[in-house]
């Protein structure tokens, strides 16, 4: 299948807009991806023709809305290689997915003296919920080292896995550096020792084919809004035996079988974890995003982005005083960098002036910034709708920025 970026771009309405009077060069898909017309139209059609609450009404409209919502579960399950639909729990985003696991599996399984192993490259979403859990339960957080290129030190990580380790949680792809971690290998290390694994897949699912069953982690979390779907719909994938044994997350409607003041019995997985009216339209929109990506093919997307990443890396290295932070061989299309004389925040503003949107700051990964010895970085995160022209505009704007601050 040939990949036609011009056609792709024409399907994302926002890419035709301007920022500060210039054509928008959107290089912040790692923060949130733009939406294809298919997603926007699916949500508008759902609200204007098919909307009702789900799992409730006896009338046709509600039955149809329920069927559409549940059909997305099936689509997502197939998209990420889940064994069965029930393994897909809808949440708001990856952050909520991780908190769900910490609040349910964590509360039941982590006790005083236990250890939770993380890595230095984690996003705050995969640090803070575990810190909160560790504090509640009297457990300890241990952190696997990374090298100066931003590559995980597997030997060190393995040395941290001990008899008290209950959980190994790590990013599939680092949001700040782009490093792709060897998930299957890490999961195998944990499994040998009976340690549960959680993978933060927020930055992986938008860039490459993901097969959660083959990767083998017990939990895999990601956000729909980074996968070209709307904000408000995310996914926790869990293996059935664990999901079955876990207590509910939030209590309320939709997650029960029957309620009386004497006691309540809970609905089966996944409804047990989906209390209250969910973001129905966002789930519908997410389904449209999955269909859209399936139509292009994640293999084609990964190949295109890989080529674009190489081009961008080469071009960025020509900017005077620019240093790329994160130089792993296995890398997704995320490039963090600093300039000698300009602070990342100033870089962000200067690029904004040229119509180029990048993220500047600590990328919700303050420990990682500390480890890499920088207060912050500027980050260009690419998606399959970006082009060599986008990269050229970035480089041109960076050369001007470097001149301004020299």
């Amino acid at each position: 299948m040939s990949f036609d970026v011009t056609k792709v771009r024409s399907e994302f309405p926002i890419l035709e807009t301007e920022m500060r009077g210039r054509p928008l060069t959107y290089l912040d898909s790692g923060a949130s991806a733009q939406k294809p017309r298919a997603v926007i139209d699916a949500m508008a059609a759902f609200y204007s023709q098919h909307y009702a609450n789900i799992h409730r009404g006896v009338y046709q409209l509600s039955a149809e809305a329920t069927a559409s919502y549940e059909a997305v579960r099936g689509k997502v399950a197939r998209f990420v290689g889940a064994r069965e639909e029930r393994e897909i729990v809808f949440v708001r985003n990856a952050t909520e997915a991780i908190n769900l696991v910490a609040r349910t599996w964590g509360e039941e399984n982590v006790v005083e003296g236990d250890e939770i192993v993380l890595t230095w490259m984690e996003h705050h979403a995969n640090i803070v919920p575990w810190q909160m859990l560790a504090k509640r339960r009297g457990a300890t957080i241990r952190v696997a080292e990374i090298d100066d290129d931003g590559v995980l030190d597997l030997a060190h990580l393995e040395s941290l896995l001990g008899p008290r380790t209950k959980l190994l949680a790590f990013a599939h792809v680092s949001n700040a550096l782009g490093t792709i971690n060897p998930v299957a290998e890490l999961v195998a290390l944990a499994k040998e020792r009976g340690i549960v694994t959680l993978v933060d897949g927020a930055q992986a699912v938008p860039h490459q084919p993901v097969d959660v069953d083959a990767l083998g982690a017990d939990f895999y979390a990601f956000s729909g809004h980074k996968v070209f779907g709307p904000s408000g719909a995310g996914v926790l994938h869990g293996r059935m035996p664990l999901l079955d044994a876990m207590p509910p997350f939030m209590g309320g409607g939709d997650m029960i079988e029957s309620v009386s003041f004497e006691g309540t019995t809970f609905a089966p997985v996944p409804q047990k974890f989906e209390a209250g009216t969910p973001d129905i339209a966002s789930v519908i929109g997410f389904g449209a995003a999955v269909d859209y990506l399936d139509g292009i093919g994640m293999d084609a997307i990964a190949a295109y982005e890989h080529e674009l990443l190489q081009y961008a890396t080469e071009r960025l290295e020509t900017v005077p005083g620019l240093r790329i932070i994160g130089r792993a061989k296995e890398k997704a299309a995320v490039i963090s960098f600093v300039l000698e004389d300009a602070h990342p925040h100033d870089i962000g503003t200067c690029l904004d002036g040229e119509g180029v949107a990048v993220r500047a700051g600590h990328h919700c990964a303050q420990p990682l910034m500390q480890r890499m010895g920088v207060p912050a970085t500027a980050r260009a995160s690419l998606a399959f709708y970006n082009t060599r022209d986008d990269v050229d505009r970035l480089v041109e704007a960076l050369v001007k920025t470097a001149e301004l601050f020299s």
Partner: protein
Amino acid sequence: MEDLRELYQATILGHNKKPRNFRVIEHASHEADGHNPLCGDELTLYAQVAEDGTLEDVAFQGSGCAISKASASIMTDHIKGKSLAEVDDDFARFHELVTAPPGEEAKTDGLGKLAVFAGVREYPMRVKCATLAWHALKAALEGEGSAKTE
């Protein structure tokens, strides 16, 4: 990039490269840390208040973006020797300058060199950078120890 010259005026770029009063005041009568978690700007503000209630000396140290660094540098120059009431008044006027609606004519009366920050009003995301040193100064004078803009 031409529009950006409004924001990054030569004076600001100069103070960013060579900030004034960029030092520690040992045993300062007042000091506070300022922190802007959004972009990681961090500075410590030192103030020496004389017996007559004037700011005898003001200095800062830290790291941050050009806007926060230049703002701290120009602020320390501007307020040295003033009374605390005058400093309060300066902060109020400076705040008004950088938070005025974009496109409106800037009111720079009495602000002296601080007027170079008029361009910040076009970049609302940068207001926190421009005011960080001022918030830290206020925290120091009020004995609060730290200030945060986010």
